């Protein structure tokens, strides 16, 4: 069998306009439609692959949608543009969510959907930077992404780049020691060009985060590590938008990194997946898939 080798980024037609980027100030109803379309795409990929993480993907899709379609400065035409904002999906198991939004914004060809988790596919189970333009560092092993984001922020600062660095962490992921090493580093090195978003869905694989190993008051924890802390209801695009805009402001007015504790709903968008640890990393069977698609499509109407 031929080995997987790095492939060049998707070639976009010269006339292609990225659907959305940071310059598009999209209203909530449009964001909601994009997020729903991404949920459908992510679920289709997981269903076809018979494997993947729907609950984890849905949990962060509103955040990814807002960031990629209305906030981050990026351009699928120039995936190596040095002053583009960086994004690290530290909770790499939500790869289908990232792939869906990168499809929506022109980095990945939608035709690749059926290849998720298949041999020779660029759409690996967890994001692999060597196969996907727009992904700068591979993730999947939890606890590592925040340190990578700090490194990016340090390097960009050395270059006087206006670029900002964003990362999304799982709440369970915050049980990893490396996360807190990075939390200390970010504050110590005063990387104010970094914003971390904790996907606080209160679930991990074995159940509730508080039952597995309690995370308690995360806002207080980050505050005591000298970060700016914002806490939001991340089922509201208004709250996501104002928190991200506030984070931009804090990046200019303080010398601290900023964390957004985003209270989310794992499995959001499909009633029977919501708040169920069991849907963390399980593909739907055919009848579940059809029921989920019907619910999501109803939201698009």
């Amino acid at each position: 069998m031929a080995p997987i080798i790095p492939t060049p980024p998707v070639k976009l037609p010269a006339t292609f306009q990225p659907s959305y980027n940071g310059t598009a100030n999209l209203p909530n109803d449009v964001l909601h439609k994009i997020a729903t379309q991404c949920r459908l795409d992510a679920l289709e990929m997981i269903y076809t692959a018979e494997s993947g993480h729907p609950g984890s993907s849905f949990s962060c899709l509103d955040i990814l949608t807002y960031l990629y379609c209305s906030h981050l400065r990026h351009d699928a035409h120039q995936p190596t543009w040095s002053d583009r904002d960086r994004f690290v999906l530290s909770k790499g198991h939500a790869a289908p969510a990232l792939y869906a939004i990168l499809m929506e914004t022109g980095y990945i060809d939608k035709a690749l959907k059926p290849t998720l988790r298949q041999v020779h596919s660029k759409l690996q189970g967890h994001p692999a930077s060597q196969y996907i333009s727009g992904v700068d560092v591979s993730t999947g092993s939890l606890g590592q992404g925040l340190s990578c984001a700090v490194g990016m922020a340090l390097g960009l600062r050395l270059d006087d780049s206006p670029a900002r660095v964003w990362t999304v962490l799982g709440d369970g992921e915050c049980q990893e020691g490396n996360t807190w090493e990075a939390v200390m580093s970010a504050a110590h090195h005063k990387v104010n060009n970094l914003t971390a978003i904790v996907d606080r869905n209160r679930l991990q694989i074995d159940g509730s985060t508080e039952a597995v190993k309690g995370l308690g008051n995360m806002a207080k924890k980050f505050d005591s590590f000298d970060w700016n802390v914002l806490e939001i209801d991340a089922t509201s695009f208004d709250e996501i938008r104002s928190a991200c805009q506030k984070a931009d402001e804090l990046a200019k007015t303080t010398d601290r990194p900023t964390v957004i504790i985003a209270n989310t709903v794992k499995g959001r968008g499909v009633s029977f997946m919501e708040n169920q640890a069991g849907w963390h990393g399980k593909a739907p069977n055919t009848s579940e898939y059809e029921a989920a698609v019907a619910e999501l499509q109803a939201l698009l109407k």
Partner: protein
Amino acid sequence: MGATVQASSPAVLNEPINIESPKKHAPRVMFGETLVALGHENPNIVVLDADLACSTQTAKFAKAFPNRFFNQGIAEQDLMNTAAGLATVGKIPFLSTFAMFASGKAWEPLRNTVCYSNLNVKIAPTHSGISLGEDGASHQSIEDIAITRVIPYLTVIVPSDSTETQAVIEWAAETYGPMYIRLIRPDVPVIHRKDDYVFEPYKLRVERAGTDLTIVATGETVYFALLAANRLAEQGINVEVLNALFIAPFDVEGMVASAKKTGKVLTVESHSVIGGLGGVVCETLSEHCPTPVKRLGVQAGRFGQSGKAVDLFREYGIDAQAIEEAVVAWVKG
């Protein structure tokens, strides 16, 4: 080599080599000084450490370029992943700490973040092997070659002296890709004259040609092999000495050529005999040119221990005398 940068070399590197009474120099000092020289030439070079900057000698770079030096504190996973992040935005990070912690505590970030993403991070830890001495087994990395050389995309390099260290660090700075450069604590004999040293990446370096047996050594044990070769010559045994500067990728052709010539191969390393140089030599020869191999190093089932380096080399059977005895027993026995 095409290095654009020349660290000012101490005189000792240019003196004629006398294996019997060599001049000594510390490769980690050379590492620190070379980083500073490179730092002047290339603004993209950044250095990270984990509270061992004085030991690893990265403190020199920290002093010269405080804004390009990042002390990550005692947090080796963070050290590795932060270096990865810096590499994604075009920096050339050199990170250092003790080899035990760079390869051990940070192994998974090294594998999953740095190597799987094929990032241009140079991991250059010091205090590898048993020669760090007195701190004992908790600090002696005798498995690091084994656990790094299995990682795809990672180049594993073990310089034998200060001259090679300088050449390797300069080459690493201008050559893309993740690298693990295994450095040591002590001052060691300078066995290559800077003046006529030719750096050849990816090649087993023939330090001495011979016909009766091949000694493949790596790092500081190359000197012991050369010293043993002198003694053996006096007894009419003519050994070939190969310097395994590059462990991964390994020079299969060079190894096979020498094994074909001599028919006997002895490996020597300041590392476990399992999985390191002895491992790669056995794998290579059993597949490409079956040849009897004996392995000197820390034997299976043993950790290191506290002691002076010289006493540890004796205890673990990798000094010149141990090599000489092993060769005599094999060739004459």
